[in-house]
């Protein structure tokens, strides 16, 4: 066998290697080019990136607002929208982008995010811009409570989109069928649980109807605890103080309702079935943002409305509020163009498209809220008493500020409150939440 017969494979491989090396270099080049940030194109058009966290229906409205904005700018600004409908995924994307110094110019934030994002300089304070364009922005038109929630160390970090609070959704048909009077604004948490107990229905040893669903969402519970005289955070927002006798009593009442069957135990209602629209529960504690969703899912099957939250032992309702808004990234390249977009997204015209017309949530502008109430009344669509969300905002909203460690608190709260009704004792749950949160604060 000659040497030459041993080498054809090697000869071919050298050629292939050259080819592969060139291909690798090309691919790396293309990849790097794809990573290049946007900015101003050769035609002079600026490109802004906008990230949002909304449903498909809301996204259609946002696209319309953005299209109107681009038109108004005479084609000098183009906006690229990225919408991530899942809240958890949205925040993961946002945080990884922030750590990679690759945040979009403008992005959707919630009032929970103000302090955590501001301390990391992910968002830019916009006081100077608001002051410069105050005639156009009309800052007094926003809810004072929401502006306060978007404020960190005396600086404002976002313009509002919507401002939500919580009410009790009522299946009126079920109340009428059982001959139970509808609640009025004076009802208390005791009345609420007693009313819920009247709807309990069991068939063949299995419970098939409950009086109400319970909501244990962290920000909502701040208000419920407050209505019974309890606090969750210290006044300076540096410590968790949730483990108090008042708060234990609040959780105990919820647990009693579960054990009596007035409210379902965790994971007791059928998975994938909304208990309210599925007529498994007569009442449903939910946010103002859910009105359009409930309207669609009930779809005329029964009459329903909303009622104000019950009063607590302090004699107050204690409604916690939270909302969304639009921030400019601390790293935004073109602040002026980004600010123009933020103004457009928070303008009365945008509020009309995004919130008034679909009568969802509560608009971030008080003037739009009036329009919103008129629109709701004229539409003859449930809930007839939608105005209660605005009234609660005006009269019952507690002064809530979300601390820098809010997301850690959410994780801990979610992990512990899941045991309520599954063997967890209220006192132990609250002690654990407080202990773990304060340990995390110390570590951070």
């Amino acid at each position, binding site marked *: *066998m*000659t*040497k030459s017969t*041993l080498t054809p*494979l*090697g000869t071919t*491989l050298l050629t*292939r*290697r050259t080819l*592969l090396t060139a291909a*690798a270099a090309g691919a790396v080049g293309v990849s790097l080019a794809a990573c290049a940030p946007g900015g101003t194109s050769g035609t002079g058009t600026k490109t802004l990136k906008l990230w949002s966290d909304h449903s498909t229906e809301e996204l259609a409205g946002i696209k319309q607002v953005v299209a109107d904005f681009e038109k108004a700018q005479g084609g000098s600004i183009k906006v690229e929208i990225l919408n991530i409908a899942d809240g958890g995924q949205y*925040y*993961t994307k946002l*945080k*990884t982008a*922030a*750590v990679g110094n690759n945040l979009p110019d403008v992005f959707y934030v919630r009032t929970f995010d103000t302090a955590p994002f501001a301390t*990391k*300089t992910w968002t830019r304070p916009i006081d100077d811009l608001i002051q410069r364009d105050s005639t156009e922005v009309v800052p007094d038109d926003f809810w004072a409570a929401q502006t306060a929630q978007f404020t960190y160390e005396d600086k404002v970090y976002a313009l509002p989109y919507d401002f939500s609070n919580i009410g009790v959704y009522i299946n009126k048909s079920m109340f009428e069928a059982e001959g139970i009077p509808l609640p009025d604004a004076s009802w208390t948490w005791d009345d609420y649980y007693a009313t819920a107990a009247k709807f309990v229905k069991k068939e063949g040893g*299995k*419970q098939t109807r409950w009086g109400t669903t319970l909501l244990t969402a962290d920000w909502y519970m701040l208000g419920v605890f407050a209505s019974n005289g309890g606090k969750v955070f210290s006044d300076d927002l540096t410590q968790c103080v949730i483990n108090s006798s008042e708060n234990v009593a609040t959780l105990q009442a919820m647990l009693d309702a579960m054990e009596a069957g007035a409210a*379902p*135990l*965790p*994971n*007791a*209602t*059928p*998975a*994938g079935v909304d208990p309210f629209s599925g007529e498994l529960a007569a009442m449903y504690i939910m946010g103002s943002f859910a009105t359009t969703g409930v309207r669609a899912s009930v779809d005329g099957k029964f009459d329903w409305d909303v009622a104000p939250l019950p009063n607590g032992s302090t004699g107050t309702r204690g409604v916690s509020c939270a909302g969304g808004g639009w921030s400019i990234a601390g790293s935004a390249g073109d602040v002026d163009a980004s600010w123009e977009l933020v103004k457009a997204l928070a303008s009365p015209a945008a509020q009309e498209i995004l919130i008034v017309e679909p009568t969802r949530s509560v608009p971030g502008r008080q003037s739009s809220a009036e329009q919103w109430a008129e629109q709701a009344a004229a539409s003859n669509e449930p809930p007839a008493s939608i105005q209660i969300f605005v009234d609660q905002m005006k009269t019952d909203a507690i002064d809530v500020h979300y601390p820098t460690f809010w*997301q*850690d608190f*959410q*994780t801990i709260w*979610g*992990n*512990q409150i*899941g*045991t309520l*009704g*599954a*063997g*967890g004792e209220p006192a132990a749950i609250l002690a*654990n939440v407080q202990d*773990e949160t304060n340990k*995390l604060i110390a*570590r*951070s």
Partner: protein
Amino acid sequence: MFDTSRPTRRQTGSSLRRKEARAGLIWVQWWFVGFLLFTLIPICAAIYLSFTSWQGIGAPQWIGIDNYVEILSGDPVFWKSLRVTALYTALALPSGLVLGFGLAMLMNQKLRGVTVFRTIYYLPSILSGVPVLILWMFVFNRDFGILNWMLDLVGIPAVPWLNSEFWVVPAITVTTLWGVGGSVIIYLAGLQGVPTELYEVATLDGAGWWRTLFTVTLPMMSPVVFFQLVLALIGSLQVFAQAYILTGGGPNYASYFMSLYIYNEAFIGLRLGYASALAVILFILILLVTAVVFGTSRFWVYYGDSVEGDES
């Protein structure tokens, strides 16, 4: 002029080996680029960050071994997540191996229509994880789930599968076992490679089913079992999606696996230095356990009569 001298067997083999190695390196270069960019560099970065207090902004602050000291001495959630991960591994690993091997034995029978069953058992493996887990939430529902309905038929009271600190890990294990079809295919390929003459000899020698299993099938299948054991062990220690989707780590951290803890520290709390230290500890743990398994393999894994270094 031709070189007519005959190359020695050693020279020819050496040259071929070099060429093969070169060819192999060229073929793996794309993989190597990916490994470098997405595995090796991130691992090195994580090791460095584990000695810092980096929270995603500014330059990482070097704090030495403080993160490790905090994790090992002052973090009860770490020990809880480690216990939960170990419990899951102890449940999922042996049951997955036995179930996979047992099903493969059944699927290896020469029966009419057995391919239909093979397809049925393999199907769960090709379904995407998240939608499947959503379906499992229906199954585990306390009052309306099919599992509790079946228990009710035999008089067993409803179990709060995903809300009980005791039952949540066994429930998650069941969701994992549902996808055992993937390993069944590999076992099946191994079983079909066992020489039939070995079974014929065993039969002639009067060996029964169990005797044949332990003296022929298992020894011949031991490399496949070893492969599956290593993969399943690493997978079990890295379990994440089930808890992320089904329970969020609850109730009361009863399903707070190490990977979920790392994820939450990194992407919720943005304590990237601390999360990196947790990741390094998990990495070392996996490395040690895998090394132990490899170390024991020479006692129970049978590679036939091949001689190392045989070039023929």
